[in-house]
């Protein structure tokens, strides 16, 4: 870059910086400010001197500080980052340093600026298009489209009967859950017998264990007997009782086991 140009830039830079300070609020963040500063370089963003830009930015922040203008934190964060970048760019690369080189960081910043600029231009182009309601118009007097929703529910007699059959069939399944008046489960019998068994040291007829109200009706008696018999076998298996039957069809007798 030729010397006089640089001097002119420096002047422009100062003027710009002063103007900028007046309305720092007008900027949409540090990147926006950087983009504005970069314009003072009057070059394509691809050729921009990031080092010079960093100097401009830091000068701006310094100036803001002397004028006691409060800068938002993100402006200060950017300043710190740019100071770091500046040192990276100025010092010879340290081979032990991890991370991106100063040049890479600078290139990325230039890319960010270019991308932001590109999006701004795209936004401007977009807003400058012939737009609906401004240059192009939709029908001003639309006619309402009436929506008539008619839902026809269909069901046939077969559907109806199947539904009824389904409900009634469910009903016939219900004995398993509800119609317990004629059925005693083994669990019930087992619960009863566990409670009673401790009192009987001698052989007792199993029929004597039938609960009240379960021996009159044949159906109930059968169920109670069956469940108590099954429960007895369970208790034998557990080793809690002995069971015996003298002869075919003779009474089944049980007693609590002694040897425990």
């Amino acid at each position, binding site marked *: 870059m030729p010397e006089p140009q640089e001097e002119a830039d420096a002047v422009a830079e100062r003027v710009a910086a002063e103007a900028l300070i007046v309305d720092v609020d007008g900027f949409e963040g540090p990147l926006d400010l950087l983009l504005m500063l970069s314009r003072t370089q009057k070059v394509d963003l691809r050729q921009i001197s990031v080092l010079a830009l960093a100097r401009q930015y830091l000068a701006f922040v310094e100036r803001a500080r002397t004028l006691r203008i409060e800068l938002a934190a993100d402006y200060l964060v950017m300043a710190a980052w740019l100071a770091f970048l500046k040192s990276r760019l100025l010092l010879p690369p340290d081979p032990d340093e991890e991370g991106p080189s100063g040049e890479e960081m600078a290139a990325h910043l230039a890319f960010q600026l270019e991308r932001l600029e590109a999006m701004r231009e795209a936004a401007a182009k977009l807003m400058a298009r012939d737009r609906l309601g401004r240059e192009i118009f939709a029908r001003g007097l639309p006619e309402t489209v009436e929506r008539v*929703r008619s839902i026809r529910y269909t069901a046939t007699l077969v559907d*109806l009967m199947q539904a009824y059959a389904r*409900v009634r069939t469910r009903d016939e399944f219900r004995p398993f859950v509800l119609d317990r008046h004629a059925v005693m489960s083994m669990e019930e019998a087992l619960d009863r017998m566990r409670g009673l068994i401790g009192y009987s040291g001698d052989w007792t007829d199993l029929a004597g264990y039938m609960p009240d109200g379960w021996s009159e009706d044949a159906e109930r008696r059968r169920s109670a007997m069956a469940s108590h018999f099954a429960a007895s076998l369970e208790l034998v298996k557990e080793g809690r009782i002995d069971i015996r039957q003298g002869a075919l069809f003779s009474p089944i007798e049980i007693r609590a086991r002694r040897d425990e």
Partner: protein
Amino acid sequence: MSDDASRPLFDPPPLDAQERMVEAILFATAEPISVADMNARMPHGCDAATALALLRRRYEGRGVRLVKVGEAWAMRTAPDLAFLMRREIAESRKLGRAAIETLAIIAYHQPATRAEIEEIRGVSVSRGTLDQLLELEWIRFGRRRETPGRPVTFMVTEAFLDHFGLETARDLPGLKDLREAGLLESTLPEPSDGATETDTQVDMFDAEGNDDAG
């Protein structure tokens, strides 16, 4: 619009261009617009009336046409296409399970209270289900039951009988008939000779399709 309207600085646009203008104006305005208003909007020297006449002819027999509303003009769809402006969304839907079961229970047990329906279905009956059936006019309210709380009862309607091709609700087949007709299975009705299944009761209990019988 320039303020010296008296001096014709430019020639008016050709008539076909004027016709386009009238077309765009009529299309986009939110209200019918008079010839005078059109002229006021169009460039100096235009003759909206003539352009309008041309445009009107152009739209003759089209899907939209130019109509005069008082002293103003508007575009309107052709009356014979009014049917397009009505969107009839006719859906035929199968009545949902809850609804059909509820309906069946009412039909078989009418007059039935809600509590009775719930007792039979074994689940509660939502207000929506009953509303739907009432709306379909397949059920109606019957007399209140003379029990505590005086609950309303539901009955099936004439429309119901009509729809299902029944003379009276008593014509509904009984449970036994249903079983004999094979309607108690979720699968197909059994073959008429009854060779494979000896007892309908059996397949009712061993649920759907266990083919291990063979």
